[in-house]
């Protein structure tokens, strides 16, 4: 997995609440058997018109946000399906950080498996970052995972919380499966014990 340590980049504002996984990556793009190449389809139904032309009003089509690496979003971002294609599409587009007051559970977890950092903050702070993002490409914010803080273009510093284990994995770019396989003997003994207590499983 790609590491995530610190980035400084443009943040795009997406204040809409309940941005769902069907919006992030419509189902017609789930037919791939690969992880890569989904960035061009991110937000496809909002980003392109019926003829496949870019919708100039969509935030990520605006010149100042085309290289955005951070999304500042409305409540409950990523609700809906479990499709990991959603974070794959965002990461492939170049988005590595999403900031909101809340995230859907599965999307939130999926981000961490792909070198992405979802950050939950109280409404006031999301509002402040939304305003900063609205300034466009002249306003770059810095997201520092090690020190758990965001620095706005005006040097406001906003601390954030992150699960210690997830932080460790992101900073080191660790492979979960490798970590778990190191505990194979614990899984073996659990299975042996379960074979006794719940043999029907």
């Amino acid at each position, binding site marked *: 997995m790609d590491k995530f340590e610190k980035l400084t980049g443009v943040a795009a504002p997406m204040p809409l609440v309940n941005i769902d996984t069907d919006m992030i990556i419509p189902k017609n793009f789930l037919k791939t058997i690969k992880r890569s190449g989904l960035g061009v389809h991110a937000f496809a139904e909002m980003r392109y018109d019926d003829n496949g032309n870019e919708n100039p009003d969509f935030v990520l089509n605006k010149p100042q946000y085309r290289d955005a690496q951070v999304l500042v979003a*409305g409540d409950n971002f990523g609700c809906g399906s479990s*499709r990991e294609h959603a974070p794959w599409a965002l990461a492939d587009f170049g988005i590595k950080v999403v900031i909101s007051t809340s995230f859907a559970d599965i999307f939130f977890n999926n981000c961490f498996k792909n070198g992405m950092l979802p950050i939950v903050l109280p409404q006031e702070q999301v509002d402040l970052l939304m305003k900063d993002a609205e300034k466009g490409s002249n306003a770059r914010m810095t997201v520092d995972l090690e020190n758990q803080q965001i620095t706005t273009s005006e040097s406001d510093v906003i601390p954030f919380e992150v699960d210690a284990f997830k932080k460790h994995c992101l900073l080191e770019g660790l492979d979960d499966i490798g970590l*778990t396989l190191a505990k194979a003997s614990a899984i073996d003994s659990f299975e042996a014990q379960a074979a006794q207590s719940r043999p029907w499983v």
Partner: protein
Amino acid sequence: MSAPKTLYDKIWDSHVVSQDEDGTCLLYIDRHLVHEVTSPQAFEGLRMTGRSVRAPDKTIAVPDHNVPTTTDRASGVIENEESRIQVDALDKNARDFGVQYYPVSDVRQGIVHIVGPEQGWTLPGMTVVCGDSHTATHGAFGALAHGIGTSEVEHVLATQTLIQSKSKNMKVEITGKLRPGVTAKDITLSVIGATGTAGGTGHVIEYCGEAIRALSMEGRMTVCNMAIEGGARAGLIAPDETTFEYVKGRAHAPKGAQWEAALSWWKTLFTDEDAHFDKVVTIRGEDIAPVVTWGTSPEDVLPISGVVPAPEDFKGGKVEAAKRSLDYMGLKPGTKLEDIAIDVVFIGSCTNGRIEDLRAAAEVLKGRKMADGVRGMVVPGSGLVRAQAEEEGLDQIFLDAGFEWRMAGCSMCLAMNPDQLAPGERCASTSNRNFEGRQGRNGRTHLMSPAMAAAAAVTGKLTDVRKLMELEEA
């Protein structure tokens, strides 16, 4: 004496393989369901690292999202190339890695969340995961069941465990009795309407109360299926005689002495008195009406007797969202919901594609015709549901009413196969999501129960099914 535990606490505790100092746990997974859309990259990951599937006998694969539902699919050809590649990939992966498998040609094939319970793979007290958010369905058995992403699919394939942090406990109690015409779908939509789509975030919901107890397993699956739409990690219902009766005798349910042993453990799976819930929601069963959604979020729920709301009725970010929804749905505030004309009726999905759902729709449709200009499709949740319905003559009722009678699959619930809405078409749907574009680009979805969808088919408009029921009684 140990502290009182919730049902969730009990299942969690019995599956912890190891726990780190920060509380992160390795949780053992009893059943892993797999479908063709979210698994190819996971199997590819195993191949690239030379890993195998740790427990192929606990891993069940079935294609459902992409499969055609037309009766000519027996020829085995999927016209859409990408869909075919995905289904073929599952076929190869299932055979190469030796997991349990129900191919399209098998009568037991169907939507993964219908096949699992039907075949007795899903049992009380289990942990069940699948790369699909509607895995919550299996919570109806008192199993801890939730959706996972593809990286986690690979993790479970390789290790039969998941790295998890425990969620909080939430209780949703539905007291009293449901009124005639009100179903499990109305319960689950009404709960989401009350709590919002983020109301359950960070929680596992236990549904309880007299109205939940009175539901069949099919109804309980409908309720738990949509726990995810309320933001919850999972939904649960404590197992009882209704559960045991449903499970007994199924192909992969325990038999003989093992059945007795299982039963005695299953009977301990309930929330202890005085166990702590972090959040409690109580709704009177008598207060629940047949409901429909008007917008593009499952929380946009109103009784069928209501009117389309105005953006000003909401607060905060929801004002803009409501404006956008109304625009997308082509609706004007103040319009009576019962005045909204529909083009398509879809009956099916892991929410409402079980036999009881088809019976409920058929009861309304019996002796009636679909309104002129309306297109209708019934897609059974599995080949066995289809066979059962045919045995009961339900297929003929649907055909006589003018519906298409299809083969099993996810179909128009998410429209990955050719079953899609055309732009601007409005659908009365028994599925679970009314998101923009969900059933086809620029298609418009109103979620409701099978009985309500059948009523809409008859009148060509969103309709209070109770009015058709009164006609029957008169």
